Every structure is written in structure tokens, then in C-alpha cells.
């Protein structure tokens, strides 16, 4: 069977499964639509949360980023898993006890203010949209590569599928489809990793393999990689090239951002009990860790494989580089997408890949007769191309396509649901028309999801920046706006309405301002985006950590000088701190 047929088959079968589940578990009531009747088992909920969380960025981009960043890529690994510790210990059980549908609902009630709700809804919609646009882009890339259609067609197919089950199914449909998607994506991620680990080191466990010795070479994989990349003028793989303070700040922003992402938080509203919220967080991180501990292994192996392919001989020898005309098939297929390209700068017909931005390496490169790096590789293709580079069977490559699509679709669907819930529930029912019937609320939710799919599709086709830029924005904002006020709402009785609103606005304005200043989302950047111009040497990716600190400070100071929250609110805080009496799964 050809790769093309195999891919159609793998993607087709997985879709049939998701759609089947969506139809089988169609939402009947408003509460089913938003929170799955609060009757989802912790293990299922953990898997669904993991699928929700592991987006196209985790599945497609992360290992590729790590491959090129080396140690610097650790920020994503620690940041996107460490956030679950914060979520589990500081937010999840209390929000479950609070027992409502959405994050703005909590903020509105805890801070007894419609203004606070509106600020929260704005933060939430903004975060979710930036995030979902990146997912739609991921869907488009995967479809266009494997089904060999253009990116617009790929996007339209993806939009149709997302709309179908997010809108018809609601949360309950999504929860069970996401369980299926998790299984597909984790299988698709680990199978090629195990194959490649065996091939390179003889050790089938990727987590151990990337520290093991390379087969027949008597040298450990990471040691070899460090040595090879340095000989090509790059920083050592295990050293990376980010400053310590920047690594610290980015990790913190990503951790706190994770804990503040509304589509992840809302997952913990769906379990039957407070106790289950704690257990759910454990299962979620467990399922996530399966992928996240494999990713760095995939990254390092992909980098070494890539270098070995283009530089089969000794570095510096004239015959040691791959002749372009003899390039492998995968190279040609990816060239067609434009995400991999070769430019013969020194006219020798061979591919030279090295760091031409390193001034200390220029003389060495010239002595080899190299006149600049000739290979440009888009980081996003590494995971998708890796099985092809390693010559794995076609069915594995087809599986990876299905996995990538599962990852992007599940996250997109979860986010759309959060958007539709805040529009119909928080805005329409909560603010504009309190007497809305369940049925019309559900209808508005579906319409909102439909509109959101179209906007997200448009943003995915015309992204306002690179996906990484957009994602940094989403995390920074979540860290600087939502997380601090939710946390203080639980752990302090003194923080009041005025404090929360000024905190959210301070954090939001500062973080958004800093990112726009350096990265220029929607406008041209104003500042020069290099380390010497950054505040304390912190890059825009990490600035959410500072925004968060400002939010805490502003909220505390303003609360001190204004009056304490009313008795009823203080009683509410007392109440959510104690598990007993949480509304049951059926009553509300």
C-alpha cells in the first residue's frame, strides 16, 4: 500500500471513531453541553484533559524546538508540566467545590462585580482565540502535507470537523472523543520514538535511550551530539543559548500560564467530587508526562539523524557532505512544502549545514570551503519528518499524521467550547438576558462556536504572526491576568473587587504592551528584540512572569486601601476551602 492510501486510511478511521463517539454522546441539556453532567470518571477526565492540553504545539512543534534549542528547550518541558502542580495544589479542588460552569463566573461571584466578570471574559476570549488560531494553522499544515492539498483546503476540512463535534456534542461529546484522541495521539507519538531509539541505541525506551550509547560507536548519544553540533559551530546541545534568568522567567510564565488557561481549568469542573478533582489532576499530568518525557528523546535523535544525513563523513573533508542530487525521498517531499530548502552557496553540489551566525566559526568554515549555511529547516517539520528520516515503515508515518490531527483538533474543540460558554453563559445569560431559557442559551452557545470556528479558521489562514509568537502571547496573558486573581480569590479573604480589577488590568496591559513592543503583533515592532534591550534580560516569552508579579502587587496594594469584601463573599471563601457539601453531579 502506498503512503498516500495508508494516510487516508489512518486519518479516515480515526475520524470515523471520533464522529461516532460524538453522535453517541450528544449533549441533551445545557449542563451536559458545558461540563459533561459533572459525571466523568477521573481517569477518563485525566485523559481528556491531556488531549485537550496537548495541542499541535506539543505534538508537532515541541520536539522540533527542543531539537534546535537543546537545553533551552527545557523551558517547554518544565513549564508545561510544572503548571499542573500549581493547578492541582492551588486551584482545581477549590474551583470544583465552588461548582459553577466557567472561570468568569467564579471571578464575578468572588469579586461581587460585573466589571470583574467582563474583564475576565475579555482575557479569556483573547487567550482562547490566540491559542485556537495556532491550532487551526497546525491542522492546515498536517492536512496539506499528508493529503497533498493546499493549506486552505486543509483548513476548511479541519474547520468542518471541529465545528461538527464541538457544536453538536458539547462537553460530554468532547470528553469521550478526547479520550479516543488521546489514545491515538500518544500511540502515534511513542511508536516512532521506540523504533528510532531501537535503531540508534538498541534501547527501546526513549526516556533512557537518549542517554545510552549509540549502537556500534561506543559513545553516548548526547555526548556525540554535543561534539557534532560544536564542530559545526553551534553551542553544545546540553548547554543551549538562553541566559539563566531568561530560562527562569520563561519557565515561570509557562507554568503559571498553564495553570491559568481557561480551557484547562474548566476540565476540573467536570468531575463528580472535590476528591476526584485532585485525582484527575494526577491522571492528567501522568498522561501528559508520557509524551513530555519522550519529546526530548525525539528531539535529540532527530537532530543527530538530520546531521548524520547531510554530513555522513568527517566534518571539514570536501567529500563528507551529502550530494544534493543524491538526497533521499523525504527531503524531496518536504522541499515541495517549502518548509525545507537548499541553496548551493559555494556551488559544489553538496549540502553544508552549520551555524553561519557564529563569528568564531567563520574562519574554520572558510578553511573548509563553506560559504554559508545551505540548508534551512522549519522546526515544525521535525516530528512529522522524523519517521521518514529514520526510514520507518509507511504505516508509522501515516499514524503520525493521524496523531498530529488528533492533537490539533482536540485542543481546538476544547477552546471553542470555552469561547462559546463565555459568550452564551457569562455574557448573554449573566449580563444581557438573565431570563434566557436553557434551550436558547444552548442555541446561542452553538452559534458562538460556529462564529468562533470561522474567525479561528481565518486567523489560521492569515496568522497575525508565527505560531510561537501567538502562543507566547496566550501564555503570558493567562499568567498575568487570570491566574493571580483566581489564586488570591481562594487564598485571601482580604482581596476585594477593586484589587482584583486593578490587578488584572495592570498585568494584562503590562504584558500585552511588552510583547507588542518587541514582537509587534498586528503592528510593526517598536523595540529591537535582543537580550540587551530586554527588561532584566527577560524575553517577551517570559515577561508574563513579571506581569504576574505586578498583578499580585497591584491587587494587594489596592485592596489594602479600599474596604474589605462583604461578609457573604468571605463566607463563600470559607466554604470553598472545605470539600464537604460540594454540589452533587446531578443537582446544581
Amino acid at each position, binding site marked *: 500500500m502506498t503512503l498516500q492510501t495508508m494516510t487516508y486510511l489512518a486519518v479516515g478511521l480515526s475520524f470515523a471513531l471520533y464522529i461516532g463517539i460524538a453522535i453517541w454522546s450528544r449533549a441533551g441539556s445545557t449542563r451536559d453541553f458545558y461540563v459533561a453532567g459533572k459525571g466523568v470518571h477521573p481517569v477518563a477526565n485525566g485523559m481528556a484533559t491531556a488531549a485537550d492540553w496537548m495541542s499541535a504545539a506539543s505534538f508537532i512543534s515541541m520536539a522540533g524546538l*527542543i531539537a534546535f534549542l537543546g*537545553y533551552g528547550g527545557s523551558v517547554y518541558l518544565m513549564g508545561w508540566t510544572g503548571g499542573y502542580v500549581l493547578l492541582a495544589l492551588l486551584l482545581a479542588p477549590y474551583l470544583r467545590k465552588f461548582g459553577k460552569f466557567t472561570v468568569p463566573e467564579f471571578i464575578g461571584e468572588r469579586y461581587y462585580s460585573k466589571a470583574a466578570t467582563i474583564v475576565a471574559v475579555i482575557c479569556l476570549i483573547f487567550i482562547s482565540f490566540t491559542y485556537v488560531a495556532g491550532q487551526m494553522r497546525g491542522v492546515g499544515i498536517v492536512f496539506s502535507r499528508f493529503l497533498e492539498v493546499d493549506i486552505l483546503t486543509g483548513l476548511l476540512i479541519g474547520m468542518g470537523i471541529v465545528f461538527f463535534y464541538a457544536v453538536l456534542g458539547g462537553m460530554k461529546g468532547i470528553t469521550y472523543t478526547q479520550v479516543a484522541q488521546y489514545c491515538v495521539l500518544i500511540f502515534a507519538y511513542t511508536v516512532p520514538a521506540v523504533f528510532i531509539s531501537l535503531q540508534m541505541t538498541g534501547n527501546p525506551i526513549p526516556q533512557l535511550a537518549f542517554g545510552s550509547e549509540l549502537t556500534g560507536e561506543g559513545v553516548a548519544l548526547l555526548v556525540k551530539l554535543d561534539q557534532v553540533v560544536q564542530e559545526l559551530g553551534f553551542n553544545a546541545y546540553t548547554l543551549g543559548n538562553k541566559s539563566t534568568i531568561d530560562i527562569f522567567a520563561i519557565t515561570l510564565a509557562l507554568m503559571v500560564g498553564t495553570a491559568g488557561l481557561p480551557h484547562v481549568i474548566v476540565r476540573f469542573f467536570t468531575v463528580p467530587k472535590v476528591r476526584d478533582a485532585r485525582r484527575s489532576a494526577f491522571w492528567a499530568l501522568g498522561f501528559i508526562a508520557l509524551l513530555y518525557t519522550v519529546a526530548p528523546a525525539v528531539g535529540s535523535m532527530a537532530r543527530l539523524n538530520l546531521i548524520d544525513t547531510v554530513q555522513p563523513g568527517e566534518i571539514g573533508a570536501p567529500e563528507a557532505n551529502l550530494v544534493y542530487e543524491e538526497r533521499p525521498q523525504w527531503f524531496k517531499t518536504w522541499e515541495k512544502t517549502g518548509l525545507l530548502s537548499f541553496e548551493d552557496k559555494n556551488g559544489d553540489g553538496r549540502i553544508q549545514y552549520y551555524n553561519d551566525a557564529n563569528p568564531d566559526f567563520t574562519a574554520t568554515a572558510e578553511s573548509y570551503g563553506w560559504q554559508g549555511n545551505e540548508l534551512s529547516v522549519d522546526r515544525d517539520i521535525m516530528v512529522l519528518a522524523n519517521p521518514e528520516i529514520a526510514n520507518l515503515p509507511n504505516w508509522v508515518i501515516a499514524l503520525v499524521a493521524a496523531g498530529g490531527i488528533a492533537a490539533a483538533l482536540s485542543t481546538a474543540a476544547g477552546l471553542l467550547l470555552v469561547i462559546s460558554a463565555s459568550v452564551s453563559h457569562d455574557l448573554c445569560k449573566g449580563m444581557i438576558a438573565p431570563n434566557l431559557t436553557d434551550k436558547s442559551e444552548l442555541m446561542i452557545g452553538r452559534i458562538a462556536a460556529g462564529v468562533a470556528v470561522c474567525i479561528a479558521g481565518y486567523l489560521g489562514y492569515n496568522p497575525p504572526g508565527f505560531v510561537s509568537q501567538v502562543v507566547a502571547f496566550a501564555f503570558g496573558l493567562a499568567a498575568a491576568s487570570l491566574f493571580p486573581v483566581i489564586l488570591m480569590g481562594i487564598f485571601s479573604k482580604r482581596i476585594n473587587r477593586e484589587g482584583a480589577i486593578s490587578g488584572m488590568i495592570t498585568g494584562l496591559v503590562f504584558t500585552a504592551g511588552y510583547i507588542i513592543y518587541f514582537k509587534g503583533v498586528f503592528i510593526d515592532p517598536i523595540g529591537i528584540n535582543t537580550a540587551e534591550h530586554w527588561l532584566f534580560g527577560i524575553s517577551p516569552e517570559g515577561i508574563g512572569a513579571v506581569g504576574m508579579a505586578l498583578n499580585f502587587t497591584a491587587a494587594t496594594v489596592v485592596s489594602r486601601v479600599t474596604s474589605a469584601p462583604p461578609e457573604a463573599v468571605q463566607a463563600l471563601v470559607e466554604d470553598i476551602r*472545605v470539600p464537604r457539601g460540594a454540589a452533587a453531579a446531578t443537582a446544581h
Partner: protein
Amino acid sequence: MEESQRKAYWQANIKLVLMLLAVWFVVSYGFGILFKEALDAIDLFGFKLGFWWAQQGSIYVFLLLIAVYAWQMNRLDRQFDVHED
């Protein structure tokens, strides 16, 4: 529920959370970032130790922390008689 009981329960909760967060901080920001260079001198099955903490070890500890939290909190809930059902 007695006011003093409620307070004691909350204090115990805070104490547990702070202890776990201290570990959380040490394994990621400590071992994986601040002391990474010093730890890299030590070899762990082919990994530089600081690098291993940043890309593998911290994740395993995070998982363990949530498990300990869930287990200890359920114990605390029963001890203070605030557990569900």
C-alpha cells in the same frame, strides 16, 4: 464545624501545599536551572545530571507531588471530618 477546627484544617492544608511547592521549586528552578551547571559535572547513566533534571527528572517529581498531595489531602479531610459522603 467549629471555627478552631476549620482554622486548623486550613493551616494543615497550607503547610502541606507549601512543603510540596518547596520541592517543586527545588527540582525545577533549583536543579534544572540555577544549579544546572554545577550538577552537569555529575554523570547519570549517560546524562549530565543538571540537564537530566531539566528534561526528565523534574517531570517525574511533579507527578509524584500531585500523588502525595491527593493522598495526604484525602487523609486530612477524613481526620478533620470534612470529607465528602
